């Protein structure tokens, strides 16, 4: 699930480059522009559809990213879950429970390299891991459908939509093998603006630490 957050960040940050280019050339532009992304912040609504639920459930949150590898993803207000990444150090913090869980970054890197930034370094790199099933523009929105080439993984598809004028990501939806899906809708996207000091820190003094790697 965590990998999906980074996909959102990476795709969202890069998508301005896709604006006004209706064919797959937008992908090449987007990939070429990724390295220019230094920082990003956005609000999101996360909607999860599961076989075990009669209706999808949703939660609101906010994310921040700063090159080369700092990341913060928090859900709820006040935040109930915060994911902090600094380089290879990933922590999942639950302030209400006063618990901090140290995640093994390798676990996330294993599948399709989705935790890497830039998300892809070239068109060839993207196509090595995904098949582009569809790319179409309707009005100001461009929709892209990707399918992982690893047919054995849990992820079975990615659908993203972005504004062709602003380049902002509007939505990102991931489909999974068990029939569930996770959709994120983004708003208030700020690119390459200075982020407040301490954005990627959280005081966990007194919290119970669970090291998932051990």
């Amino acid at each position, binding site marked *: *699930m*965590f990998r999906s*957050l980074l996909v959102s960040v990476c795709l969202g940050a890069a998508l301005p480059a896709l604006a006004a280019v209706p064919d797959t050339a937008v992908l090449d532009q987007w990939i070429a522009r990724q390295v220019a992304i230094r920082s990003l912040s956005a609000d999101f609504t*996360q909607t*999860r559809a*599961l*076989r*075990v*639920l*009669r*209706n999808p*459930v*949703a*939660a609101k*949150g906010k994310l921040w990213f700063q090159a080369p590898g700092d990341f913060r*993803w928090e*859900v*709820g207000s006040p935040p*109930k*879950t915060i*994911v902090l990444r600094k380089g290879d150090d990933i922590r*999942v913090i639950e302030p209400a429970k006063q618990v901090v869980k140290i995640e093994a970054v390798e676990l996330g890197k*294993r599948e399709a390299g989705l935790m890497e930034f830039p998300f892809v370094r070239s068109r060839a790199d993207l196509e090595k891991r995904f098949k582009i099933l569809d790319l179409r523009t309707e009005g100001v929105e461009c929709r892209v459908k990707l399918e992982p*080439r*690893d*047919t*054995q993984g*849990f992820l079975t598809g990615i659908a993203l939509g972005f504004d062709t004028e602003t380049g902002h990501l509007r939505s990102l939806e991931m489909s999974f093998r068990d029939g*569930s899906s996770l959709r994120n809708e983004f708003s208030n996207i700020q690119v390459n603006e200075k982020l407040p000091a301490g954005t990627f820190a959280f005081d966990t003094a007194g919290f119970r630490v669970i090291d*998932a790697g*051990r």
Partner: protein
Amino acid sequence: MRAVRIAALVALVGLTALGLSRISFDVDVFKMLPANLRQAEGLSLFLKHFARTDELLVTIEANDAEQATRAADELAAVFACRPELVARVTYRPRWETQPEELSELAAYLLLNAPPEKVRAAAERALPERVAQTLQESLEQLAETVSPVEVVQLSYDPLRFSEALDGLEKTARGAPGEFASEDGRFRVLYLDAAPKLNDYRDTIRWVDEVRAVAEDWNQDQRVTLGITGEPAFMAEISRGMEADMKSSGVVALVIIAAIFWFCYRRFKPLAALVLMLVLIFVLSLAAAGLFLSDLTVMGVGFAAIMIGLSVDYGYLLYQQWVEHGGSTKDLRNRCRPNIFWAALTTAAAFFLLNASSLPGLSQLGNLVGFGVVIGAFVMYFLFAPLVARLKWRPAQPSALAAAFWSSWALQIGAWCTGALVLVLIGGLIAAGGPTIDDSTKALRPRHSPANKALDRLYARLSDQTNLLSVLVTGRDEVQVLERLRKIDGALRETGGPDSLYTSPEPIWPDAARQSRNLETVQPLAGDLARLREAFETAGFSEDAFALTRNAAALWSKWLAEAPPIWPSNPSSEWLLRRVASRGADGWVALGILRPAPDREEALAAFREEGVFVVSWKQLGAELKRTVPREFVWLVGILVAVTLGLLFFGFRKVSDVGLMAGVMALVFLSLAGAMAMLGMEWNFFNMAAILLLLGTGVDYPLHMTLALRGKLGDPREAQITMGRVIFLCAASAAVGFGSISWASNYGLASLGRTCALGLALDALIVIYLQPVLWRFFHGRRTGA
């Protein structure tokens, strides 16, 4: 009298047939190791309880994950079409295809959880709290970033799994079973369809599985490996059978060729070969009657025994050629030689019983029996044949004549002297051969199954420094008590960075199960209310399945007496890796990865019924115990041999010369080994004992000859030299033929003994007469 003889012969034939019918092989390497070693005991227990003799592992390695997965699917389908060969193919977690089976494991684990946590979980399902609990779960499902949590909350929205403390760590420490992380390496587990009654059935089954797999992989699209207990059994037992047959036959053929080279007469050769076959059959029958299954060490006995027993035949024939006479004359002339040689040789081999290595003891007993039987057969059957049928040898060939000429003996003496000096110099320079303290000596020399297993470990789980923790007990309660007792101590001894995956969280706790069953009993009778609460909260029937199934199981288990074990195939698959029940009680298995400097401290961990073991630590334990034991054994054998020689010869100078010759032999052997890069291991150390026992025969024969022909030591050297040459060549061939044995330890023993006997013969034939002349000449001169 005639009737008695016929009756004795019939009895002998009957006993022989019975003995031969009882011969069987034991491929368990631990049968070759001391039973009192903690590591050997623990590892033996591990193999007995956790290595399945009817499960074969087929490994697939491909260039990419997709190809490996496709190959696994295809090959599994191929085996699924062979129900007469494979009862079940498992190549992905069963719960992937049968997720409903996990309900049983979940229900069981909850029953085993701390009662206060189960009570807290049950309270969340009470009528006044269930709506709030489900609403919280919905919110968590919306917010969580953890895929594990999504799955847990999806199928357990009442959050019973929160009671399963410590289980996550147990799951995390478990090695992968079906695929490597990169997906390029896959494993298929095949259950045997036919019943595998003995090693022959196992060989047949493994061969058929291999043929099916290789037929499917004709185009070499992937790399296949076959391993697992049946593969090892098939490999080792096939090797043992071949070793025994081939080494015995090879030894027999070469010995016959040596005899032909020396005497060039077919009839005595045929008679000698017949005697050797008879000795072999009688010895094998004795082994079948008196000993348990043959180990991989024991199978080497045939070649060694043939190589040693033929000595008595050579001696008898050569003595008859030299002196002629009746059977009685021949027996009288050879009796001391045969008696003392058989006595010292058999003593040396029987002394191997004092070793704590059962494999060596068995080899010693087999060869000891064989040598004694050989002496009797040659003395009572071959001697009259030789004396009555008067088979004269052909005139020696020019080559043979030149071989024993004066100048050849002189050149031989100089060359042997130079060789001894070079070898002793080499020994001083190289510092002696090193000791290989690994457990390599226990393994087959060429083992595709071992290679496949190494690859499997390398790709699926890092076994470096990994220790197995085996906790035994007469029942589940005692095992659990011990698991809890050692937990803290093991973690502390393992160091702060150690990782101990204990089976304790999933081991049945009868007391907890009773209390938890009481706690969850009301829920089992309240399913309609709970289903309605799920529906109202927005959960589907899928989300309720686990709760429903678990409640049904709890109701069922209420009628059973704890401790309760789960029993469906998915639970069985998981639990068989950590729990086993046998006639000797229960065994639980944990895995411990200690801090690098704590491995030995853990191996020395002592607690009743607990074994912390690894192959590496077994090697260390053998290194601590076996060499020390051999020093004692060698000391005893030296004392016994010297005592026997003093008793027989009653002359200090003769015994001193023989001891000196043997000292030269051992120094030269050590030098040769050091120069050839040969190492001592736990099995070829026995070569010291065997060389003392068999090698002392040659100086003994030579001394007797020199004593008998004081007037002409050169004639004694030629006469006895021929016999010793034949004996040594035959014995070296006997030992040498097991140099290619499938077992590394047996092969190294064969090589070391063959080399030692060759050096022994050279020194005795060429140097001992020179030394004899030197000492007796000086004494005469003085």
